[in-house]
């Protein structure tokens, strides 16, 4: 049987691509990105590269896809009330300025000829820090719970650094209703500025850094951190789509094919947050970060195939985990709804 119809010609990259693979990548990243609140460039870029896209095209195509996918997830999260638009817009300012400074630092390192190894090891260092922070926060919260600590508004929490940071009293003070926090405007600006510098320096979208920063330093509930971060990823993704098209590194056809898969995946990932506990999301996020870190270390030592296998199996397993949460939760909700309706009919 002729399988030519399964391949699509990409006019700019000049390669034929297995399009069901694009749909599958879009779907998986939609599920994971919608659940964790990040773009997921670390998953898409190796996937596109394996399908046959040259690396530069994989990065550019990935960015435009992330913008569209984040838009789909933001629409859904917004209905749940998970997007703090005021906080997101304020943070965009800090993020953009930070990315610019981070990128200038990269150019300086490029002139010194040290860019590759420095960036990779800094990336590994920060991923390790995030993973340690997430897991020790969980351990601390469990310990506090065992010792019978009094639960606050968000239950028993591990690290509460944001409470100290909320005491900073530099005007203007702002109330972020959706997140339920009251703090100085300079706190989200500073946090986004610092995560922006890191994102620009590391050459990533920044969702991986911003999501935990929103939880631990600004104090947004996990679900709102996910939605607000996606809103930011959407804005920076659109900017990225523009600049990468100017450089001729985006294959728009592939973006649209991936978006069809992402549209379904994003619904599953986003709705799954409704049935997941905040700490469940944090732990799965920590595991993803850890696997991402190990794959970068493997790449650094030229173990390209094991790195790709690790990333792809992480994506597969996390996808199954999220889908299980979503389908179990949805089935329970529908069953309870049916029971309620039956009881009401009997009464």
């Amino acid at each position, binding site marked *: 049987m002729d399988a030519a119809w399964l391949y699509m010609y990409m006019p700019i990259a000049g390669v034929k691509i297995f399009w069901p693979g694009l749909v599958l990548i879009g779907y998986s990243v939609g599920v994971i990105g919608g659940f964790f609140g990040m773009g997921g460039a670390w998953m898409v870029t190796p996937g596109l590269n394996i399908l046959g896209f040259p690396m530069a095209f994989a990065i550019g195509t990935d960015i435009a896809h992330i913008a569209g996918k984040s838009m789909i997830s933001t629409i859904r999260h917004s209905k749940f009330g998970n997007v703090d638009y005021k906080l997101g817009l304020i943070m965009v300012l800090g993020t953009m300025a930070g990315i610019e400074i981070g990128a200038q630092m990269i150019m300086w390192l490029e002139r010194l000829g040290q860019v590759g190894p420095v960036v990779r090891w800094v990336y590994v260092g920060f991923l390790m820090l995030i993973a340690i922070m997430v897991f020790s926060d969980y351990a601390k919260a469990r310990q506090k719970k065992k010792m019978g600590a009094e639960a606050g508004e968000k239950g028993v929490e591990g690290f509460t650094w944001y409470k100290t940071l909320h005491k900073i009293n530099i005007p203007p003070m702002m109330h972020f209703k959706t997140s339920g926090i009251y703090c100085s405007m300079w706190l989200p600006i500073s946090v986004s500025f610092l995560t922006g510098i890191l994102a620009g320096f590391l050459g990533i979208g920044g969702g991986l850094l911003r999501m935990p920063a929103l939880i631990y330093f600004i104090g947004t509930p996990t679900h709102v951190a996910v939605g607000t971060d996606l809103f930011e990823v959407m804005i920076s993704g659109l900017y990225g*789509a523009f600049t990468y098209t100017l450089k001729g590194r985006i294959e728009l056809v592939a973006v649209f094919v991936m978006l069809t898969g992402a549209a379904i995946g994003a619904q599953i990932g986003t709705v799954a947050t409704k049935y997941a506990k905040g700490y469940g999301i944090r732990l799965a996020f920590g595991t993803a970060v850890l696997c991402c870190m190990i794959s970068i270390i493997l790449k650094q030592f030229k173990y390209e195939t094991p790195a790709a296998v690790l990333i792809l199996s992480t994506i597969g397993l996390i996808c199954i985990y999220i889908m299980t949460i979503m389908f179990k939760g949805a089935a329970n909700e529908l069953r309870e709804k049916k029971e309620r309706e039956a009881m009401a009919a009997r009464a």
Partner: protein
Amino acid sequence: MRRIYHLGKTLLAALAMMLPATAWAAGEKATNIVVVADTRRVTGILKYFSNLYNTDVVMSAIWSVVLTVAIGCFLGFLMDFIMERTGLDLKSRKIIEH
């Protein structure tokens, strides 16, 4: 009108040159070669956009953003319409951390 369009194009191109070229470059650095779309093997709308990319890259970049937004919104609202028919409550959720 034409002058405004050209001025806008120049400003956008300058902005893109000045702002971080490396901001998203997680992988290897892209080489400075000019990539041209092969319009011989595509037809219809794909041919139109490939030609546009070859002749007016700024316009093509603007179209990339506009189409990404349009398709993102279309798919987002379409899936929203479908999901609402599943009977799930998609407008409220409890925030439970533990």
